[in-house]
């Protein structure tokens, strides 16, 4: 063995190699810190994005829009019966006074079809709400009252600018309105007035030309393929068929090409052009006073169209008239141009008012987006949580105490422990299937020739069934948390109690459990919070049903917040989208509150021995 010179080894601590190694180590630390910061920044950004999306959407539904009307309440005999009944569930739908007051609020006579469109801007529920007003005070019947009618969901979205509202464009010229009997209305304007409209129309034409070009290429492909098929075919009948097809393809190709050429020309030509405003084009309005003209053709210094609300003929100076444009074509928005004009006039008259949307929290689910609220789901979630807690907590605590304090340590208890830990990791939808089979549907088995059903004692869609399923899911969490906190109680406490002559049960109940309780509660609350946000298992026991009333007890059908969110999110009405965000906000508030409670409990009762 060679002898080692430790003095020489010590000298290495001040060598260049050591310094280099030191630099490398510092650099590695800096890098590691940077990675960490990047990861956290990324997570924070994602969270911020999610949070801001939800908050923005939620804020958009904190208020809802009403239209101030002055209906004269008139009730038919059948309506009167309902209005005077003591049963609060019997509601009268006074939709006629609502629509009559609407018609009275707009100038001129309205056709039946337009009448329907006009009534469509207020909620279908407005009649019922007027009925509620009259039911509360029967003396109002026959009187004219001030009434705020809830607007339809699409109208509300329109007012919030979801489809774009008419945007003013350059109107720094005089406008000359020419009205002739039997002729379309003509408005003559200065040359600069319509340049913005042309820009939008040209862009749209250019886009359409590209689509036409794509269509032409598709047809050309079909032509090529068909020509090849004709070359390979031998059966004359088949050849005739293919040639007929070829002919059709060629015609379609030529038509697309012709369309493309025309659109291209319109998109590029600068002067002397006439745009026909179709359904797929932006809408151009001329607004003078309360009168509205919708453009049908647009030329350089001339707009031809029809009145939606009449404008007196004459010459209007700069500033007294307005050209307005909605870029989104009428065909792609649920509010027609006719409705836009009504709504804009109501808004200009100050008849549209905003109110705090208490309906969102107080109402239950509804098919109409403007009426839907989360109260039913909150009550459903409450019952479900009550059932889950009262099943899972006692069972979980008892299981934890037995396993920690009483059970012998052997293979069986080891097996149980492993299984409980694994159970906590089982996907929740599996618990849903289990719960469906056992609690709701029941399992049919044949025993000694007779068929018997096991389980199936809970009604479908009920908080009882949902709560039982969630209890299965939460149980392992509570048992694990319970065992951990029971184990954290120092053995000296057990020794003290046993040394005084307390039995094992007394030791566990009087001393161990009270000390472990904060920990058990913390674990349970976190388990409950998890259950509160759970969706998948509840879908399987039917808690995603459409239920318009809060469940009065755990056995009535109900739904919960997460399943309501799931349902609303798959609805096509756009207002549901915003209300979904609001429901998510409420759910998150509950979850954060529960977790805060868990943290508070932990801090409050934290013990050091």
């Amino acid at each position, binding site marked *: 063995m060679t002898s080692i010179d430790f003095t020489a080894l010590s000298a290495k601590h001040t060598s260049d190699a050591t310094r280099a190694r030191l630099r490398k180590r510092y650099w590695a630390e800096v890098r590691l810190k940077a990675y960490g910061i990047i990861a956290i920044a990324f997570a924070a950004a994602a969270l911020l994005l999610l949070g801001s999306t939800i908050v923005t959407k939620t804020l958009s539904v904190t208020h809802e829009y009403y239209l101030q009307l002055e209906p004269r309440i008139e009730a038919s005999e059948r309506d009167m019966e309902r209005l005077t009944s003591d049963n609060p569930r019997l509601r009268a739908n006074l939709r006629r006074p609502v629509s009559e007051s609407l018609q009275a609020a707009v100038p001129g006579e309205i056709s039946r079809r337009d009448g329907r469109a006009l009534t469509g801007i207020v909620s279908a529920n407005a009649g019922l709400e007027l009925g509620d007003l009259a039911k509360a005070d029967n003396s109002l019947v026959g009187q004219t009252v001030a009434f705020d009618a809830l607007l339809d969901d699409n109208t509300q979205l329109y007012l919030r600018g979801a489809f774009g509202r008419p945007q003013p464009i350059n109107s720094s010229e005089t406008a000359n309105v020419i009205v002739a009997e039997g002729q379309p209305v003509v408005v003559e304007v200065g040359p600069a007035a319509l340049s913005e409209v042309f820009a939008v129309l040209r862009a749209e034409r250019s886009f359409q030309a590209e689509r036409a070009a794509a269509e032409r290429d598709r047809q050309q492909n079909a032509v090529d393929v068909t020509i090849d098929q004709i070359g390979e075919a031998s059966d004359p009948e088949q050849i005739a068929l293919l040639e007929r097809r070829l002919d059709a393809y060629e015609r379609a190709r030529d038509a697309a090409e012709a369309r493309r050429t025309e659109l291209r020309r319109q998109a590029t030509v600068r002067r002397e052009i006439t745009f026909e405003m179709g359904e797929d084009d932006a809408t151009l309005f001329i607004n003078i006073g309360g009168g509205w003209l919708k453009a049908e053709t647009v030329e350089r210094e001339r707009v031809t169209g029809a009145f939606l609300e009449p404008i007196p003929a004459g010459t209007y100076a700069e500033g007294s008239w307005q050209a307005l444009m909605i870029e989104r074509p009428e065909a792609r928005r649920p509010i027609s141009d006719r409705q836009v004009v009504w709504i804009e006039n109501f808004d200009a008259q100050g008849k549209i008012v905003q109110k705090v949307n208490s309906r969102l929290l107080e109402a239950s689910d509804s098919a109409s987006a403007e009426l839907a609220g989360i109260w039913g789901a909150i009550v459903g979630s409450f019952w479900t949580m009550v059932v889950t807690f009262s099943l899972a907590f006692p069972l979980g605590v008892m299981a934890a105490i037995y396993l920690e304090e009483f059970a*012998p*340590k052997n293979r069986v208890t080891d097996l149980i422990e492993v299984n409980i830990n694994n159970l906590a990791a089982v996907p929740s939808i599996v618990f849903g299937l289990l719960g469906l089979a056992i609690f709701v549907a029941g399992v049919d088995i044949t025993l000694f020739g007779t068929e018997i059903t096991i389980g199936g004692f809970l009604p479908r869609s009920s908080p009882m069934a949902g709560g039982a399923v969630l209890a299965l899911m939460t149980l392992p969490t509570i048992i694990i948390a319970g065992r951990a906190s029971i184990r954290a109680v*120092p053995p*000296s*406490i*057990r*020794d*003290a*109690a*046993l*040394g*005084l*002559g*307390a*039995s094992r049960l*007394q030791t566990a109940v*009087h*001393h161990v459990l009270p*000390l472990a309780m904060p920990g058990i509660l913390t674990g349970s609350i976190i388990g409950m919070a998890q259950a509160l946000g759970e969706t998948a298992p509840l879908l399987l026991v039917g808690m995603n049903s459409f239920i318009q009333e809060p469940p009065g007890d755990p056995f009535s059908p109900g739904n919960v917040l997460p399943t309501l969110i799931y349902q609303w999110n798959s609805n096509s009405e756009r207002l549901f989208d915003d209300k979904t965000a609001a429901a998510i906000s409420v759910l998150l508030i509950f979850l954060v509150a529960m977790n805060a409670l868990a943290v508070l409990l932990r801090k409050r009762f934290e*013990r050091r021995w």
Partner: protein
Amino acid sequence: MTEMTLPTAAAAERTERERTNASGLADLPAPRAAEEIARAEIKFRCRDVDVFYGEAQAIKQVTIDIEDKAVTSFIGPSGCGKSTFLRCLNRMNDTIPICRVGGTIELDGDDVYDRDVDPVQLRARVGMVFQKPNPFPKSIFENVSYGPKIHGLAQNKAELEGIIEESLKRAALWDEVKDRLESPGTGLSGGQQQRLCIARAIATAPEVLLMDEPCSALDPIATAQIEELIDELKQNYSVVIVTHSMQQAARVSQKTAFFHLGSMLEYDETSKIFTAPGHEKTLHYITGRFG
């Protein structure tokens, strides 16, 4: 012993006494007269006690008689089995699943490991104080009242309060805590906590008090208080104390048993063990050659 600065004259006096103890075993109790020993009643009669932890034998063939109204101390190096043996006396070892006890241990003539004996009832008669003070994290009142409550010792609240006052007085803690019985027991100082644990054990009205190194977690002043207390307690109880401090054994006990590697090598009057030990190992241990 290191020099200590202490605030009060009383404390200084106590330190002085400890110093003399440490140096020359000067303060030994006077040997009792022969007839007194003969009259002494035997509380525990242990014969050929073996204790196994699984396969390992922790106690080998220990035979010992423990007297009533006297202090018996168990001394010996670490791991010699004195605590294990102590825990056999009130069957605290039952809580360890792999522990087996052989031989006989009789309390007033009844085998404590008999099938008919309920260990819970046994522990009410044989109280225990542990190495580390372990008051329940509850009020002082609840700590002391727990034993009487679960054993039904008090008929009413007044009786219960009487028991608690008497127990705290016997544990020399009453004057310090009588005004704050509702404050938590864990808020007391280490020495007070240990006296609280003793009061708690006394409140159950046991016949025997087992103490497993009751002073090892305490400072010298608290230790002195506990030792005075033990001296008082022997008027009414049979006290068995496990200790690592030979001075303590010499100061408080009348009988001393020396344990070594699971066997009891010697058991005699304390004065005899510390002046003329009968076994070479005992001599080596008490003179500090090992241990």
